[in-house]
């Protein structure tokens, strides 16, 4: 029943059957599944349970990710991960994980509606980000698969190096998304990048 209610992304995208898949250089990747996972990495049972559900291992090295088919596990802290799933089934994944971890000291929380991903891709990606991000994102330092939580201009953001185009996915909280989008649009102006029509919040 809930599937029929259209979702709205913070940048104005409305989910529908024919939602355009943006392959542009600056675009929102709305409606992904975002789950926050907390467990003790020393707890082998819990790790194994998660592995069974996800089919991938949780990254234990800070600022790294592991990826499966349309699923990524992102290190957020020594006992905290973000699960980012390409499909739109937060409920099912949430339930599977909760079942797998029931009775253990762990927490799985759905944040899908609370944050979104903005993808920045193309040769000027790093130049744009350098206008507001203090991290060294040079490909020799921040390689595909790496992630970092940091500040982008005046908002917190999670950056994920996707490929060496370079492509960077920027995860931000919902209420900050319009600001981050406006900021990115402004910074990217010199490079001729702008958001597609549907992302005009």
């Amino acid at each position: 029943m809930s599937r029929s209610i259209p979702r709205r992304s913070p940048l104005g995208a409305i989910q529908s059957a024919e939602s355009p898949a943006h392959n542009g250089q600056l675009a929102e990747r709305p409606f992904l599944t975002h789950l926050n996972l907390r467990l003790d990495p020393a707890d082998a049972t819990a790790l194994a349970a998660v592995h069974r559900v996800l089919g991938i291992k949780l990254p234990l090295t800070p600022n790294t990710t592991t990826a499966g088919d349309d699923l990524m596990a992102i290190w957020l802290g020594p006992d905290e991960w973000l699960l980012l799933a390409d499909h739109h089934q937060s409920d099912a994944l949430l339930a599977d994980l909760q079942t797998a971890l029931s009775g253990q000291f762990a927490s799985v929380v759905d944040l899908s509606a609370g944050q979104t991903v903005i993808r920045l891709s193309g040769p000027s990606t790093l130049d744009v980000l350098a206008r507001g991000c203090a991290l060294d994102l040079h490909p020799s330092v921040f390689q595909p698969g790496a992630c970092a939580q940091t500040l982008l201009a005046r908002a917190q953001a999670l950056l994920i190096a996707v490929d060496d185009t370079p492509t960077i996915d920027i995860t931000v909280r919902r209420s900050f998304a319009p600001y981050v989008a406006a900021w990115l649009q402004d910074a990217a102006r010199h490079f001729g990048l702008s958001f597609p029509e549907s992302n005009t919040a």
Partner: protein
Amino acid sequence: MLLIPCPWCGPREDDEFTFAGEADIPRPADPDALTDEQWADYLFMRDNRRGRHREQWCHTAGCRRWFIVERDTVTNEILGASTYGNSS
């Protein structure tokens, strides 16, 4: 600008962090057993040392972990960082 060495994420610029003053001020186990003076000492009194200083930082915009940094408060040189025992 200080580069704060997060024990997990590595050195990051200080605006990603929250500073929370001197470390090693444990909360008294039984506050009711303390005199007003002892409670005031816990609550307000600080060494505020010139030189080597152990202090609490949280990587707020990063991994959200609290940890301890040792820093020289005159030169701002970072002398080391350590994690809290149990926070894995």
